[in-house]
């Protein structure tokens, strides 16, 4: 199944997404948790830890740093940029705004 969690800031999107991911994993699903928020915090709700979550490398940053310019497969992205969370959940952070970027 593929689920997306949406809503206004502060209503509990991250808490719901993280807990649902863990619960599904405990039920035997192979779970990919994808944090598509530019201010990614899903790792906290998954149990990765606050500072650990803050230090995760996002896919976009990884690409810009030249770690993987030619990664051809989605599986490769998950493998290369993913992080292990409890209960076997695999967490991938899409992007993070962490520097000044005059749009």
């Amino acid at each position, binding site marked *: 199944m593929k689920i997306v969690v949406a809503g206004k800031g502060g209503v509990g999107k991250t808490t719901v997404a993280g807990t649902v991911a863990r619960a599904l994993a405990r039920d035997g699903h192979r779970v990919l948790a994808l944090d598509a928020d530019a*201010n990614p915090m899903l790792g906290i709700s998954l149990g990765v830890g*606050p500072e650990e979550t803050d230090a995760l490398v996002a896919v976009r940053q990884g690409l810009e740093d030249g770690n993987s310019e030619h990664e051809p497969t989605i599986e490769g992205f998950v493998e290369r940029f993913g992080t292990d969370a409890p209960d076997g959940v695999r967490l991938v952070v899409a992007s993070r*705004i962490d*520097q*000044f970027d005059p749009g």
Partner: protein
Amino acid sequence: MTVCPPLPGSDRRLRVAVAGKGGAGKSTLAGTLARVLARRGHRVLALDSDTLPGLALSLGATAPAEPPLLAAAEKGEDGRWRLKKGIGPARAVQRYAIDAPDGVRLLQSGKHTDTGLAPVMGAVNVFYKLVARLNEPAGLREWTFVGDLSAGPRQIAYDWAPYAERILLVVEPTWQSMLTARRIVRIAATPRAVAMSLVVNKASGQPDVELVEDFFGMSALAVVPADDALRDAERSGLAPIDMAPHSPAVAAIEQLADALAAGSLQA
């Protein structure tokens, strides 16, 4: 950092913007602070750059369905949005700001519609064009600005509150809120140095305050307590200052207004 020289009669002027994680209480703080400052004699322009609703409710203002700034926008020959000829910041505030209680004026960006932002892109675009020039016009020199930024670090990254001399960082005692605010601090230090003040919101006690203060290594300019009266106001869609004028949270925001107006703050 641009600081306009003090002018006669403008010593009551403040220029602040409120930033923080979604749900931290930015709009509630900005709306209530704007009303409090207006009651103390400031001419207040509230600036709502969020494309989701919020600040109008906290101010107790009724925003029209169609953003007034749409009437100030047109597309140039290059296909880009621009301000119509003859419309600058002062005139835009005069014509397109909405009246809020206590004499506050509210200038809003375009708001998301049922079909997205496309129908209001003109209003979104010219809002940012105006905001970038708010420090220019003589006609607004004596105004106090209170800005409400949208959630997270994005708007800070683009320096969308260039008028602000101080950013009020609203932080709940949660890791999500603190980490988001730390990103904002780091990003805001990049384009131009701007003074930052910490506001701990929804504090349930001294341990909450200490958690946030220790994390940032600075003391809070204000502590707004967790307050059921404020939650009830938000539930009913009314301005906290109207529905719960004597609540502890509104009292804390009044103290914040005093601290800001005292002008003794270190940058």
